[in-house]
């Protein structure tokens, strides 16, 4: 029973951090692609959307290859910072972030594109710096669309299984998230534990959806 709460806490920690990372990166990428005019935009958009379409196991494999100590990047991480991400909960955060990224990026891009450019121009003529225009006009007006994506990303990160298993493995109390624990419990024939776990996950998901409804952007912006 104790292990269930450990797994839940780990799941929430991983999903929460992954959502935070994904929100920052997804909003930034969405803004750049909505406003930037540079060659290769469409290719970049495709690459950034790929995690949504690729099987999570494939994605997990890529991450394993990239972060593993045999890759130049993984070796550099280990040599310079002494960091090893494989089979750690931090690795699970990276896996969940990658999988959830397009869920923020896509709606963020659409939301930024729907902001009337004239409002930004009006703010600039009023003497507001470009950075301040982003925080005072662009972001508040795009926030509706972005928030919807952020909540989806959290739900997706919470349910992440394939890529997480590949990158972080299933070490009870260390990297075993709820979704992975369910699989392990069923494999081991522990039906009671499996039942318990799916109820908890279901309850958490309902809670997330209710929160989403409560946070509904209409309350933040208006009407």
């Amino acid at each position, binding site marked *: 029973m104790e292990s269930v709460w450990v797994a839940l806490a780990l799941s929430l920690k991983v999903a929460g951090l992954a959502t935070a990372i994904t929100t920052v990166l997804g909003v930034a990428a969405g803004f750049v692609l909505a406003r930037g005019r540079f060659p290769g935009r469409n290719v970049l958009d495709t690459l950034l959307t790929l995690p949504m379409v690729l099987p999570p196991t494939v994605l997990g494999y890529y991450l394993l290859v990239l972060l593993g100590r045999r890759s130049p990047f993984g070796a550099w991480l280990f040599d310079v910072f002494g960091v090893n991400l494989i089979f750690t909960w931090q690795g699970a955060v990276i896996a969940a972030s990658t999988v959830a990224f397009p869920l923020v990026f896509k709606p963020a891009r659409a939301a930024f594109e729907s902001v009337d450019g004239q409002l930004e*121009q*009006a703010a*600039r*003529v*009023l003497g507001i*710096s470009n950075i*301040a225009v982003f925080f*005072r*006009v662009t972001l508040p007006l795009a926030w509706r669309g972005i928030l919807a994506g952020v909540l989806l990303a959290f739900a997706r990160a919470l349910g992440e299984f394939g890529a997480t298993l590949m990158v972080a493995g299933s070490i009870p109390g260390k990297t075993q998230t709820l979704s992975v624990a369910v699989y392990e419990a069923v494999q081991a024939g522990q039906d009671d534990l499996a039942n318990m776990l799916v109820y908890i996950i279901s309850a958490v998901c309902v809670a997330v959806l209710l929160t989403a409804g409560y946070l509904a952007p209409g309350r933040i912006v208006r009407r």
Partner: protein
Amino acid sequence: MQLDIDIYKTLRAGKRSFTLDVQLQSSSQRNVIYGPSGAGKSLTLKAIAGLLTPERGHIRLNGHTVFDSRAGVDLAPQARRVGYLFQDYALFPHLNVRQNIAFGLSHRWFNPRARERHEQVEYWIRAFGLEAMAHQLPDDLSGGQRQRVALARAIVAEPQALLLDEPFAALDPSLRNTMRRELSDLQQLLQIPMVLITHDPQDVQTFGDHVVELRDSEPDKQIRASCHHKANEATSCKDTSIR
């Protein structure tokens, strides 16, 4: 106002191209650029505000060079200190009337609080009779109220010139006359130099101390500026070059 513009810009959209070629000099306070829609009036105004960069030429406002392609001067819109009234007002939909008017007074990274009070903002709220809707969002206002808010937002920081893009086009005809009078009185009160663009002869009547007409001469869509003035005005035409 000392206004000295000589700009050239070619815009392309697919196979169509559009050449903006405007020269005008004026020392009047009330300037009107008059012409049919699509003649490049808005582009000219945007160039003055710094929202459009001409390929070559210069723009001087009250003796300050804000743009000069040869000298490599191109001030950001933020540094030009002009008030701009957009055709559909461009009020910030997420901010109430008071916050909209106060928008340009603070240059911080966050918006003025709904509760914040500025002396100048309150002055213009009273002057335009907006007290009752100061806490409302722009969507809840009528056309005339929206225009007053946009005007207050543009002038509250005391810009060195006021640029107005078809200011009355979005209003219904009965309101148009009222707002025209209000703007005319306001200009005289503040003695603020203005450039108004319009396709409405009535605006020319009211504001046109100095009138520049933009026409597009097909087929190459070349825009030329020419000067004319009301018969009873003594404004000289020689301060506008005709190309």
